[in-house]
């Protein structure tokens, strides 16, 4: 028995790096999929309140179990394969869309510091590549196929039109997307996402004014617009324009294959928000000057009142289930906030991820906000906007940035 345990221990030690990576991958997958599910809830709630509705509120308190019900529905629904589809490509397309969008999360660093468990360094990032941003663009470049092939293989006119539109749109906006970050890359002198954030930390005393947002404001505007087009979101959701194309490229997909496209879209929203945060909004840097150490209590200051509010809201909730669950959640949140006050080391560790995730949440809100606000582009408007305005402006940004960097003689 002891020899068996000894053998297991030695095997674990020999493959420790592999095991750490596997655990991280599983953990990130779980987190991302859960966040995706609640992102749908968040989107429906926010859009509903913008339109003076309540949004989902039947399943669970405040509709919090709605994503679970939706997931079960996707899994249990009938999954018909239409006649005349190209079977291999029809099954490949949703797999490709999902796999590629989930892969891109691996490159995002979620915090500056590493955890140390049993002497092993655990970075808050699955793949620390020195060509980080290029690898991300490589994955984005391939993700067009999910949509295009879904449209083609369905063997139906609306999906085909949706697939054609999306491949044209994504190719056009990918150019502007890539050109708009070149300015940032020139300033950082690296493709490494961590180095890009470190370069913004050079002016830690300036807080929010040290970020790339200000010198690269043109790049940021181009990136923001192109990123929304890349993720096929309103107002650039022409591939699935439901008033014209039924549901566009995924018209013929049902049940879980449809859910895979759905998850892919929300995952790429998260990736793009993270990328935008890292490139232009200082990543995990605090918006306050570095000397303002009292801002380190901000996570607790936000969490404790929020938790208390959830408890207060919960005990007055109309259903008994809600009166039990909501105060429970509130207690957990309050306890988390209090724990951060008690353990300063944990509080210090949480600073980076706190700001990064906070900014990502802000951009996700902007996505939803745009959906609740803007009408869809016309197709010719979309194309002329991408090619005649966005691309020239982002190229001009590259030229101006290069010129200024040359004048200042840095790098």
């Amino acid at each position, binding site marked *: 028995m002891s020899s068996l345990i000894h053998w297991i221990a030695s095997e674990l030690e020999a493959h420790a790096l592999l095991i750490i990576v596997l655990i991280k991958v599983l953990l990130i997958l779980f987190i991302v999929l859960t966040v995706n599910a609640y992102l749908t809830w968040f989107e429906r709630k926010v859009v509903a309140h913008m339109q003076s509705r309540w949004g989902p509120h039947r399943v669970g308190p405040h509709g919090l179990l709605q994503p679970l019900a939706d997931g079960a529905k996707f899994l249990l629904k009938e999954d018909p394969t239409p006649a005349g589809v190209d079977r291999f*490509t029809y099954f490949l397309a949703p797999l490709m869309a999902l796999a590629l969008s989930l892969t891109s999360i691996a490159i995002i660093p979620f915090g500056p510091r590493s955890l140390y468990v049993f002497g092993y360094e655990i970075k808050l990032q699955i793949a620390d590549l020195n*060509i980080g941003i290029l690898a991300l663009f490589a994955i984005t*470049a391939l993700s067009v196929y999910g949509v*295009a*092939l879904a449209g*083609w293989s369905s063997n139906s006119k609306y999906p085909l039109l949706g697939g054609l539109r999306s491949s044209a749109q994504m190719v056009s906006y*990918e150019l502007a997307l890539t050109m708009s970050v070149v300015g940032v890359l020139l300033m950082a002198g690296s493709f490494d996402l961590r180095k890009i954030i470190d370069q913004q930390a050079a002016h830690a005393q300036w807080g929010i004014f040290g970020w790339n947002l200000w010198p690269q404001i043109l790049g940021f505007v181009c990136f923001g617009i192109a990123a929304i087009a890349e993720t096929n979101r309103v107002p650039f959701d022409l591939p699935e324009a439901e008033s014209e194309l039924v549901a566009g490229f995924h018209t013929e997909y049902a049940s879980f294959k449809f859910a895979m496209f759905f998850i892919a879209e929300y995952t790429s929203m998260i990736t793009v928000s993270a990328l935008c945060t890292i490139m232009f909004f200082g990543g995990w840097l605090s918006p306050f000057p570095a000397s303002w150490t009292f801002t380190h209590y901000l996570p607790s200051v936000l969490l404790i009142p929020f938790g208390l509010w959830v408890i207060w809201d919960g005990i007055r909730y109309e259903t008994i289930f809600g009166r039990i669950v909501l105060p429970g959640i509130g207690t957990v949140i309050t306890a988390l906030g209090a724990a951060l006050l008690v353990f300063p080391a944990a509080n210090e560790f949480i600073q980076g991820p706190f700001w990064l995730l906070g900014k990502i949440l802000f951009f996700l809100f902007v996505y939803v906000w745009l959906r609740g606000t803007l009408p869809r582009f016309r197709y010719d408007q979309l194309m002329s906007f991408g090619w005649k305005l966005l691309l020239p402006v982002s190229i001009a940004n590259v030229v101006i940035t290069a010129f200024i960097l040359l004048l200042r003689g840095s790098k």
Partner: protein
Amino acid sequence: MTPQLVIFFVLAAVAVLGAASLIFQRHPIHSALSLIVVMVALAGLYLLMGADFVAAVQIIVYGGAIMVLFIFVIMLLNAGIEERTNASRLARFAGVPLTVVLLGILAVAIARSQVASQPAQLADTHKISMQLFTEFVYPFELTSFLILVAILGALVLAQRES
């Protein structure tokens, strides 16, 4: 066998099978998909040699941009399954021997060259860009000029039609 060698053989097999599938598939979309597999496998081989930048560019430019255009055109024309014709008699008799000769020449050339024994020189981005903008600056700029000419040519052809 080192893990690198195993990965190399897997990727090489994928690339060769993809290339064979590219020829044997009857439908243009399937052929194009096979070509994407070849491109990605090649990118994996570059990665194995430590050429991260080249691998990323391979996927972005070939796997992404160029193949998307291929697929876009096939979709736009709604091309169907290709029809088999009686292959030309010349190809039927001369094809296999010529292929063997070509492979033989390639094998001899590779065996004689020093390529395999040299470690990858153009590994990182900095070195590649230094080479591109100093030693190879004229070919590099001429290539961009060539692409510009191609774009203008496409424009002229498109304008003539309307």
